[in-house]
Every structure is written in structure tokens, then in C-alpha cells.
């Protein structure tokens, strides 16, 4: 589990020097061991996750103590709807908080060597061990303020507010996109990368400049993950574990010996922006054509299968994403790329980015699904930055000002923990 991940050092990411906690003592205090521990609650889409993150001032490292997550999987051919997703989150968030705290502060008696499923049951059913005192061990509760789906967001925000009132802890309101970026930076030690943020709800190319994460390119209609999900729905791929992963599996049938057919699809790059809705309509129409073979092998060159379409779709949309990322790199003079978001754990996308970045003499920072996909630890990570550096907009005093925002742009948050200068690409 995440507990075994090594701690991430603070120094390589070139943040501002950490202010002393006394400056913000009205907001938080380190725990009895001098550490700052934040519990983060995420639930903006179909995943609900709780993470516990700890900053150790002695080693100057951040460590994820626990990061359990639960995904609402909708039936085949159906997306996740706000109402059902909210119910799912409401049903699981308490158990997840419990599991996260159990894992972060294990009872000495609790068996550590259980198999995953057993351990899961075990952790979910039990209360935190008797010596755990929330007010003493934790410094703050971080939660997702937005952007996201209203119902799920509010469900998790209510959990966060309740815990904050119950345990008398300050609340930190976190922008979901910023959380993805900060988690990626800390986990991969990327100081100032161009960020490709690709998920079910967002498609943005971001670079830091003068106190903000500025959006250089983005989708002008639907997000890339949305495009993949909806295509999976049309051709009847399963939503378990995620539609995008099943598309990836289909596309992996392409090998040098048995190449899949590349079907021409619209390639829409407008400046630094991309568009997917026309492409989606086009590929949906293709599945109605007489050449589309749903099952079985193709008989002639005209025909194509689900795997062919999955392969062509991935090749086309990822090429568009890599292209706008490369444009941003050229524009900003950056050489490293960080890819975050649910689609970011797609191996083919990572490979394509790697090819592009290595051609430019840079490095690609990519993560696996634990940190790419929405999770609680990333909310805690951005929250702990906001808390430690005393971000006015993120640290809310009470439960006022914690109204969720379904629309909340990445560039609306002032990044107080990074230097104001424009860095390398000034």
C-alpha cells in the first residue's frame, strides 16, 4: 500500500522557503511530534478517496501515510450520474476516513500482513485505535472545493465540515486541478514542468507563470476522458475498472506482427487548443457503418473492429494532446513534462510523451494510477501547501466559505508557495 512509498523530499521542487508555523498558528499547529498531518477528502467525480499526508520538518519530506479510494462503477453502456454517484460517496466516505486513519496510525495489535481484501474489510470495520486523538494528531482537514459534479462534491464537503467541527480542526479548500499538479510535482520531484492534465472532466496544458498555473491550451468542448468514456459506452466496453483502461487493453492488441488497422479520424488542433466532440461524433457514426464488425475477424480491408477503432482513437487523440504539449513546451522554453489525471496513467500516452520529450532533450514525469487517478492524498498535498504557506484563499476559518464550486478554473487560485517570478520561461 501507499504506506510503503518512500517519503518525497521538499527541496527538489524549488518552492519558496517554508515559513515558520508560528506565523499561522491561529490556523494550525503541528502535532505533538512537530509534524504537520493533513487529512484530505476527494470526491469530485466518481471516485471518493481519503488520504493522510505527513510533513516531517526534520527530514523535510512529505509522506503519504494512507490513501484508500473507492470508485463508483456504473453499468455497461451508462455513465455515472450525479445522484447515484453522490449516494455512493455518502455511503463510503466515513468508512474511508476510518480506513485511512487506521492505516496511518495502525494499532500495534492490528495484523499488518493480511491480504488486501481482508485488510480492507478489517480496516473499514474498525474504529481508529484508542490512542488516536484527532485534534492532537491532525493539523487540518483538506477537501475538494471544485471543480466537479455538484452532488458528489457537496457530499464530501459535508463530511469534511463535520469532521472539522467535530475535531475542531481548520478546513482547507482545495482546487482539484491544483491538487493533481502538486501531487505530481512532489511525487516526481519536478520543479517547474509543463503539466498535461488529462482526465474525465479536464484537458489542459498548464505552465506556471508569475503566481498562477496558467492554462496554455485546453479542450474547447469535451474532455479527453469524456470522449474515451463515451466511446466505450457506444461500443459496449465495461466501465470496470474504468472505460479508458479497457480501451487501452483493446488497443494493446496492436503489435508489430499483428498490426491493427489505423482508421482515419478527424484531427482537430486549433492553436494550442484541441477539440474532441466532432471526433466523437465521427467515430460514433463509424460504429453504425456497414464496415464495422462488432464481433469476429474482418473479412476485407474495408472492415474494422472495436480494437481497430480503440487503437485509432487512442493514436489520434493522444497525438493531438502530445502536439499541444509540445507547442507549450516550445512556447515556454520548458523541457520537462508532468502528466497527471486519470488518462495520464495510460501507457500509450506516456510512451508517446516520452518519445516527444526525449526528442526535445527533456524528461517526462509520470506516475502510476495511485496518484494519477483522483485520490485523497493529492488533496492533502495541495492542502498542506496552502496551510503551511498561509494561503488566504484556501484556508477557511470556519465552515463559512466552504460552498463548493462546480466551475473553478486552475488559474483562479493564487499559488503562494511558488516564487512570483516567471521562472525559466520568462
Amino acid at each position, binding site marked *: 500500500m501507499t504506506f510503503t512509498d518512500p517519503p518525497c523530499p521538499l527541496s527538489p521542487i524549488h518552492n519558496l522557503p517554508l515559513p515558520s508555523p508560528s506565523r499561522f498558528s491561529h490556523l494550525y499547529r503541528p502535532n505533538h511530534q512537530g509534524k504537520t498531518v493533513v487529512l484530505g477528502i476527494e470526491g469530485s467525480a466518481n471516485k471518493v478517496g481519503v488520504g493522510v499526508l505527513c510533513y516531517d520538518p526534520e527530514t523535510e519530506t512529505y509522506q503519504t501515510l494512507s490513501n484508500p479510494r473507492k470508485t463508483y462503477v456504473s453499468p455497461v453502456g451508462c455513465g455515472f450520474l450525479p445522484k447515484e454517484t453522490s449516494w455512493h460517496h455518502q455511503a463510503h466516505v466515513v468508512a474511508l476516513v476510518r480506513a485511512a486513519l487506521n492505516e496511518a496510525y495502525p494499532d500495534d495489535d492490528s495484523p499488518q500482513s493480511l491480504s488486501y481484501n481482508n485488510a480492507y474489510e478489517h480496516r473499514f470495520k474498525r474504529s481508529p485505535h484508542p490512542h488516536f486523538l484527532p485534534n492532537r494528531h491532525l493539523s487540518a482537514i483538506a477537501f475538494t472545493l471544485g471543480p466537479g459534479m455538484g452532488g458528489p462534491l457537496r457530499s464530501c464537503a459535508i463530511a469534511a465540515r463535520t469532521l472539522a467541527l467535530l475535531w475542531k480542526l481548520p478546513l482547507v479548500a482545495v482546487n482539484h486541478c491544483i491538487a493533481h499538479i502538486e501531487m505530481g510535482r512532489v511525487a516526481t520531484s519536478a520543479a517547474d514542468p509543463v503539466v498535461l492534465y488529462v482526465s474525465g472532466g*479536464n484537458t489542459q496544458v498548464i505552465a506556471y507563470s508569475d503566481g498562477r498555473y496558467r492554462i496554455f491550451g*485546453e479542450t474547447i468542448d469535451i474532455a479527453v476522458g469524456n470522449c474515451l468514456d463515451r466511446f466505450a459506452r457506444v461500443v459496449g466496453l465495461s466501465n470496470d475498472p474504468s472505460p479508458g483502461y479497457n480501451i487501452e487493453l483493446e488497443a494493446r492488441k496492436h503489435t508489430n506482427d499483428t498490426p491493427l488497422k*489505423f482508421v482515419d479520424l478527424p484531427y482537430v488542433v486549433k*492553436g494550442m487548443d484541441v477539440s474532441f466532440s466532432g471526433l466523437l461524433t465521427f467515430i460514433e457514426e463509424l460504429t453504425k457503418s456497414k464496415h464495422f464488425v462488432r464481433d469476429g475477424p474482418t473479412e476485407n480491408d474495408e472492415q474494422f473492429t472495436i480494437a481497430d477503432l480503440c487503437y485509432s482513437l487512442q493514436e489520434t487523440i493522444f497525438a493531438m494532446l502530445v502536439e499541444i504539449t509540445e507547442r507549450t513546451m*516550445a512556447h515556454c522554453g520548458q523541457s520537462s513534462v508532468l502528466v497527471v489525471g486519470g488518462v495520464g496513467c495510460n501507457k500509450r500516452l506516456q510512451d*508517446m510523451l516520452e518519445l*516527444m520529450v526525449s526528442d526535445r532533450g527533456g524528461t517526462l514525469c509520470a506516475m502510476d494510477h495511485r496518484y494519477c487517478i483522483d485520490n485523497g492524498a493529492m488533496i492533502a498535498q495541495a492542502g498542506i501547501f496552502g496551510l503551511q504557506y498561509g494561503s488566504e484563499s484556501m484556508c477557511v476559518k470556519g465552515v463559512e466559505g466552504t460552498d463548493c464550486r462546480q466551475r*473553478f478554473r486552475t488559474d483562479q487560485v493564487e499559488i503562494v508557495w511558488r516564487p512570483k517570478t516567471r521562472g525559466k520561461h*520568462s
Partner: protein
Amino acid sequence: MLSPAEESEPTWFGPPPPAELLRYESSDVSPHLLSQGAEARVWLLHLPKTSDSDAGKATVSVGSGISVPKLNSVTQLLSISPGIHTTICKERFPKKYRHPQLDISLTKSRTKAEARCLIRCQRAGVPCPNVLAIAHWSNEQKHGDSCNTSGRLMNDKSISLTETSNTSSCLFLEYIHGCTVRHYLEERSNPPSTDSHKSKHSGEPEVKRARCGADEPETIDPNQSQEQERITTVIDKQTLLVARTLGALVAKMHAAGVIHGDLTTSNVMLRNPPSSSYNGSSNNDDGSWTPQLVLIDFGLATSTSSILPNESKTSSTALSNKQKPKQHKQQHNAEEKAVDLYVLERAFLSTHPESELLVEEVWRGYRSFYEGLDNDYHTNETNLDKDRNELNTIGAYSHVVNSVMNRLEQVRLRGRKRECFG
């Protein structure tokens, strides 16, 4: 874009350039890599100094056994063109990450489209680089010859595999001297002490640059005095003039029916950066300096129908009979133009912090160009105009610019562009 002053070893990323390009030699200068953009490498080639009579035997050293018919025609063409000593070669090299089929169709179609749009702009009198030649060359390195490349010589099997995907499309363009508008604005914004950029400027004394940057009493940006540590964009008469000229230039290009597709401040060159014409007296505020802007990088450009009245007279093309576009066509164009402007606006605001006033000035310049067209139309053609009734009290071109600006408003508000979701 870097200036030629930075003479260094050509170092490039990506696949090795076509052998034809590397082997191209004039006197003793090999192609010099100017910049490696996102999708293309830009080479600077020094042309052989030949008289017109020598043009036929241009100094090209071709390795044995390789036929390069296109190269010969290129050099011939270039070396007989008077006044051209250097040329830009924009090489769209194959992208390893793209599917070969996708890569080749994108590369070729983009090169062709770029050339078309450039020529169209030239005809309409929009300042942009001249197109000199186009060529498609293979990137494969054969015979293990002089090219210093890692993937130089592959065994026969791998060559046959990658054969289709290994084509570079080269577009030869006129070389524009000067600096980009982005560079200019940043130079103005940065305090003189940070001189990291200065070395990039071609042979300009440091002092002049500093004077130019220190020209701050005129600033009318209210935000600037408040926060000193924030980098803000200098807004004064000079930068406003540049912005206004830029707006008029974009308007002219749109009127000629070209949508640039990638309007950023990096893609506009300033032929005469003010500091280089500085000669003793401050010419920053006397108004005598007029920026000569040149649009570059039409890599994502598309063309629509032209609405320029003058073009019908100068170029006897099919455009001649449409002086006023039809209503539905106009709407369609308004969308593309508005998106083009929106790209520019966002590029401005994301690259140059707090440059809102400059953006407004760009729009003013854009409007003024169309209003100017209206005035010409009225003064020149009042007597003989047949479709006078189509012109209301508000001119036809003002109508166009209004519809574009209204559409820009819609594009700004459109969906997630404003605030993102999820």
C-alpha cells in the same frame, strides 16, 4: 527566434535532417539551426553568392549515387533571386510518437496549407515571409556518409519498415530580420538589470537596450506602481502603437481570407525593434517610430473567402465578383475569425501578465482597419456603385467587424473556456 548572431554548432533534437539539407553547402557555411519549434525545425541557409549566369551550377555537393532533383531546382531558384542572401528552411520532420499514416498526411497537408496561406497574404499585401520553394525529402541516411547521426545507417530491414514515415517537408521562406513581439514586450517589461536576453539580440549595444527598458515614466498602467515584485507588461505609447498595428495587421489578414490559427506574440516579428534604430535622441515618445510587423508561422493557418475589395482589382482571380460576402458565409467566417482573435487574446494574457490594455488596443486597431476600408469604399466608389443599397448607414465592413467582435464575445463565454468543470 534567435538571431544569426548566435553562431553555434547546429544541434537539433529529433530525427536527423534530410541528407539533402545537411549536404547543402554554400561556400563554407552549413545550415544553421535557428530554432526548433513544436512541429518544425527552422534552418537558416546562407545562399551561395553567385551571379545570375552562375546560377545553373549552384554549389551543391551531392554524395555519389543520390539523386536530388528537387534540391537543384531549389538552389537554382534561390540563388538567382536578387537580394536574397539567406533563406529560412522550415523543415517539418517526422514525429516518432505519431502513427506513420497520420504523421505523413499531417506533415504534407500542413506544409501545403502554410504555403498557400502565405501566398494569399502576400497578394493581399499583408507583410509575411515570401515563399521561395517547397520540397519533400526523405530523412533516411544512406551510404553512411558525412551526416553525423545516430540512426544513420540502419540495416535494410528497418529501413523498409520506417520508409513511409520518414519524410520531411521543407518550406523555403524569406528570412525576416528583427525580433518577435513577445521578445520585445518582455524586454520592455524586464528591468534592465536582468540582461539574460540581451545576448540574443543581434549586435545591439547593451546600453541602448537598457535605456529602452528603463523608459518608465510614461507608463499608464495603474497596477504597476502598486506591486513592484510582480512582473507586469509595460504599457506606454510605444507598446500601444505596436498593439494597434498588430490589430490592424490581423484585420488585414482576416479581410484577405486567411485565418492564422496560431496567433501569439511569438509569431509576430518586429522588423525594426526601436532600440536598434535608436540614435542619440529618444525616439520612443516622439511618434516618429512606426513598428514594421511581420506575421510568421502560418503552420496552422486556414483560408476562407476574401472580403477585400482591392484584391479583385489586383489579382484577377475568382474573388473578383464578391465584394460583399453573403450573410451566411459571413457568419461562418466570423466564427473562425473570432476564434483566431480569441487565441491571440489568450496568448497575450497568458504570456504577458496584466496586458489587458494592450489587448484592448489590438481590438481597436482591428476595428480601425475595417472602418478604414469602409471609408475607402465610400470615397472611391460612390459614383459608380451599383449595390449601394446594400450599404446602410453603417458600412459593410463595420458590419463584418461587428459580427466578428460579437462572436468573440460568445467565444469567450463559450462553455468551459470560462471556468472549467470536473
